[in-house]
């Protein structure tokens, strides 16, 4: 089955503006689709990746989240007494308004102990300065400035910010790539309790030796009627939070579908005009001896080539998104664009090309040679 490929290629080139416009609209649809997927994946995966497999998080009974949990000092002592865990750290977790240069921004502050912070949050490491000690000191996450919407220089070491009626001096900067820790502010836990006039901690983090030890401690805590807490693996804690964001994925999916539909319409419109305008040329190709299937297929290829070009442009633009931070009310996340997403995007572009050409191609498919020539 010989195809008049040069004819098809030239036809695309001849209609430069139209072809370029179509490629552009397909590229836009593909780019936006990638953005939607990268956004939802960034959200869900960043949240999920925050949990360490060796950590157990203890909240007050019935609490689903650190923000709504209160653990008193007595329970912390009980948990410390449960021997065998390398690290036990009580934390206070608050969402509060942080005043930077007189402007208030909503930020998330985690109170912890400098001595155990990096042992428990093993996905974090210090970039410069040191971890906060008592005396209203602060270490800032690498994406905290983005989260707060301020210039990185505003959170440089030596700068001071205000919240909960105190002035806090920045003494260090840490990173915890692809986790939500990256957009947090860290302070000493006792300073946080002092500033917020609280006596209850938000949670107790237990660092275990291995996964088995983590399971054992969860089992042991479940049996203890004297320590009434809600404990779970940190992985599970963030897994639940990630799952709570799944509806966002559906939103992303619906928006992607709409974009694809728009792409199909754009492609269909172009191919419709293009193919309808060349019905007679199809007739001539048939008279010359080209097979009908070959001619129709070559029209499909034209559309496919155009859409794959659009897909390539969209993917290239999409790839530039990878790793870029984005700020949404839930925090700061990085776009995740991987090979799988790009492959899906190209498949989508191909789908647009095929479906877009199908209607106009089927319209001329049944036309007799004579009828095509009369067009």
């Amino acid at each position: 089955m010989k195809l008049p490929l040069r004819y098809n290629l030239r036809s695309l080139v001849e209609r430069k503006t139209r072809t370029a416009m179509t490629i552009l609209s397909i590229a836009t649809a593909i780019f936006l689709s990638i953005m939607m997927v990268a956004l939802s994946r960034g959200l869900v995966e960043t949240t999920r990746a925050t949990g360490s497999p060796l950590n157990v998080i203890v909240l007050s009974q019935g609490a689903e989240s650190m923000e709504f949990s209160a653990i008193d000092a007595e329970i912390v002592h009980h948990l410390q007494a449960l021997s065998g865990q390398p690290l036990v750290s009580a934390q206070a977790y608050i969402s509060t308004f942080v005043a930077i240069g007189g402007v208030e921004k909503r930020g998330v502050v985690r109170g912890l102990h400098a001595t155990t912070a990096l042992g428990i949050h093993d996905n974090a490491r210090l970039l410069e300065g040191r971890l906060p000690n008592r005396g209203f000191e602060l270490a800032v996450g690498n994406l905290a400035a983005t989260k707060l919407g301020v210039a990185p220089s505003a959170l440089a070491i030596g700068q001071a910010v205000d919240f909960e009626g105190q002035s806090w001096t920045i003494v260090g900067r840490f990173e915890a790539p692809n986790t939500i820790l990256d957009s947090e502010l860290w302070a000493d836990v006792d300073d946080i309790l002092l500033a917020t006039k609280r006596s209850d901690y938000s949670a107790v983090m237990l660092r275990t030796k291995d996964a088995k030890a983590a399971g054992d401690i969860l089992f042991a805590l479940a049996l203890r009627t004297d320590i009434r807490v809600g404990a779970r693996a940190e992985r599970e804690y963030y897994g639940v939070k990630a799952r709570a964001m799944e509806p966002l994925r559906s939103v992303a999916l619906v928006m992607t579908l709409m974009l694809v539909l728009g792409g199909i319409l754009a492609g269909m419109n172009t191919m419709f005009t293009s193919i309808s305008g060349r019905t007679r040329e199809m007739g001539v190709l048939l008279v010359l001896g080209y097979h009908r299937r070959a001619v129709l297929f070559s029209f499909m290829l034209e559309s496919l080539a155009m859409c794959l070009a659009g897909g390539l442009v969209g993917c290239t633009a999409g790839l530039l998104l990878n790793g870029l931070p984005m700020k949404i009310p839930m925090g700061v996340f990085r776009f995740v664009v991987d090979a799988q997403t790009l492959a899906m995007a190209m498949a989508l572009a191909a789908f647009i090309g095929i479906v877009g050409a199908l209607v106009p191609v089927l319209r001329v498919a049944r036309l007799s040679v004579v009828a095509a020539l009369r067009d």
Partner: protein
Amino acid sequence: MTLIALEKISKSYKKGDTTITPLDGVDLEVDEGAFLALMGPSGSGKSTLLNLVAGIDRPSAGKVIVAGQDITRWSEDRLADWRTRAVGYVFQQFNLMPVLTAFENVELPLLLLPMSRAQRKKQVLTALELVGLLDRAGHYPRQLSGGQEQRVAIARAVATDPQIILADEPTGNLDRESATEVMNLLVGLNAELGKTIVIVTHDALVSAYASRKLHLDKGELVEASA
């Protein structure tokens, strides 16, 4: 020797309630090497008859026999393959591909045949030389005059060296001078290369070039005195 034979060919079209029958039991034999002009008023079925011979239309009844083979029952693809090698078709509106150069237009049917690139190029250039347009090989149809376009179309029709050339009012869109050029070309194809030619026209001046003339009217074919 008979090359093309139509046996009791009928063709009718249904238009709403009415049925029109441009061809009604037509018989025709065309000898190998003939130059036949098919005349008749507009709408008399000349194009229809030509299309039946080319295998791009099918009769309602009767047989079209070319070189001893009944082509009426062939599939569309088989007809297409046969047409590539055996039939060159020249249209009234030239029907060159506007996006391709003269060279590429002539090459189009040759791409369907198994041959080396060099061989193909040779055949394209031979055909273009035959119609006197070697110097216009790289030109696009829009850069050519009507007469030149039709000559490129003739080069395309003869590129695969078919035995039969069918031309449907090939001079209908041309001025007198270009028409003469085109007719001289067709005469040469017939006289020097032995092509069997069937040309549709309603121009008496054009039909004067033919060695045999037929009139089609009211579904019937009548031999005209030469």
